[in-house]
């Protein structure tokens, strides 16, 4: 999957879990920018991503995710 395809699938997940209907995903966006991006919402987002892309994350992979850009990169890898 390419970056655009991934972002198209990621956007509704982030919008729903963070309850922000007009959220635009950028590479730099991280939990630091959004108050509502807590442990709980992060866990819900990851679960949704795993379901949507039919993949599972390793803890090692989750630790490397610092922002949305990292997420896209890892999803590009995993959906090759």
């Amino acid at each position, binding site marked *: 999957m390419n970056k655009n395809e991934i972002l198209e699938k990621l956007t509704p997940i982030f919008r729903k879990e963070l309850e922000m209907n007009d959220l635009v995903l950028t590479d730099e966006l991280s939990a*630091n920018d959004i*108050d509502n991006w807590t*442990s709980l919402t992060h866990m819900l987002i990851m679960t949704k991503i795993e379901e949507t892309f039919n993949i599972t994350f390793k*803890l090692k992979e989750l630790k490397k995710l610092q922002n949305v850009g990292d997420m896209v990169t890892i999803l590009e890898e995993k959906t090759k």
Partner: protein
Amino acid sequence: MYSNMNFYDIVLSPILESIRRFPLRNAFCIDEVHYTYSQLGKCVSKVRTALRQSIYQNPKVGLVINDDLETYASIIALWLEGDSYVPLHPNWPLERCLDICEQVELDLVLDSSANSRYGGGGIFVLNTKEIDNAPDCLELKYDVSEDELAYILFTSGSTGKPKGVMLTRRNIAAFMDSFWKTGIEINEKDRCLQAFDLTFDVSVQSYLVALTRGACCYTIPQGQVKYIYASTLIEDHKITFGAMAPSMLRYLQPYFEEFDATSLKACILTAEACPLNLMEEWYKCATNTELYDFYGPTECTIYCTYYKLSKGGNNKTLNGIISIGKPLANCVGLILDESGDELPTGEKGELCIAGDQVTKGYWNNPEKNESSFFLKEVDGKQMRFYHTGDLCYKDADGDIMYSGRLDHQAKIQGFRVEMGEIEYHAREFLGGKNVVCLAFDNKDALTEIAMFIESKEFNPNEMLAYMRTKMPSYMIPTHIYYVPVFALNSNDKIDKNVLKSLIK
């Protein structure tokens, strides 16, 4: 019940001793940077000197709780001066923080932020990052009474305003004395996790246990996803001791197989009900740890009861939730009926707590102080008890089993939340429409908040945006249901069971 320990001997002197004895050992690891005890001592001296040069009347001082050395050093500096801190969270709505400033009539705020949100309105802001270094200023000032405050923590209040719990130096001293009497041992070689916001009192246990023993305290920066960052700290820095909320482990459970937590010697589970099945799984990756379930409301200073689990043994549970055990050394815990009489073993009633850890009360809130505390004679002595609002019973061994809340309060991500406060703000926005909030456990056994509005369906975004300006994000409901008319029960009250059944 009554501790003969004082704040100087069990808190301040040991911290100063750590600074003197271990100048080159690490006191903190904050955002991957280590700070030695010598650096901590210099930072405390700097803030204390600046405090002495500042003009303020109110010994209760606001503290913006950034995740940095200055913020922790400020706590010690304030205590050395005989002052107390009132944490102000940088991510909470400003209006809520200003309400706290106003309630306590703060005239000084310590803030290490580049751009402070405070200033004006009679508040002087001391930027703790910009002050000059100062000569050592670490001597004790011995004229401070044990009844002076150490901190005020604001928790959710059902009237729509946060309420402040006052904790004194005596309270903290009694707590630390109780804590060490549980047998947990920490020394300068330990690496301790500090996974809690400074607005939440488990943070006080987390930094004090480390600093009074010369150990290193590992914090979690704001803006990091807590459970992932904590797992990184545990693995990369070989954390040996830490207190965690069970939900943190619940999030990590899918990864337990690859999670190396073998460095943990002791681990405290607290702030939420602790499920046995999760602990049995946790033992499998934290193979060298002793597990403890600690319980306590802020009003009784961090923890007031504890239960030590036994690995592979028979751990006591009620509905899958581990017992909260027996009262700590400086606490009395009784199960009382509605008229205040002690109930026999096995009968459910309200857990009430007395002893030196019990707060002297809520700041400026006579009504709440009247209703939350009472005197009762125990073994010929008058004791002052706190109503915890928790429904419990004691088993034949005296271990306390937790059964639920008596009132309309829930724990969300470890934070106490009054449903009434959320309802209040939603009603304010909706112009008096009927609103009910209920906490429920989702399929992952995590507590979420559902809000029911007596109305046709509408787009809730504006309302949610309004609510976010009033309350921290953990208080914002995650599910909204629209109900044309609320069903009533036989007492003509809104039937919450009917509403609860709507939760999908």
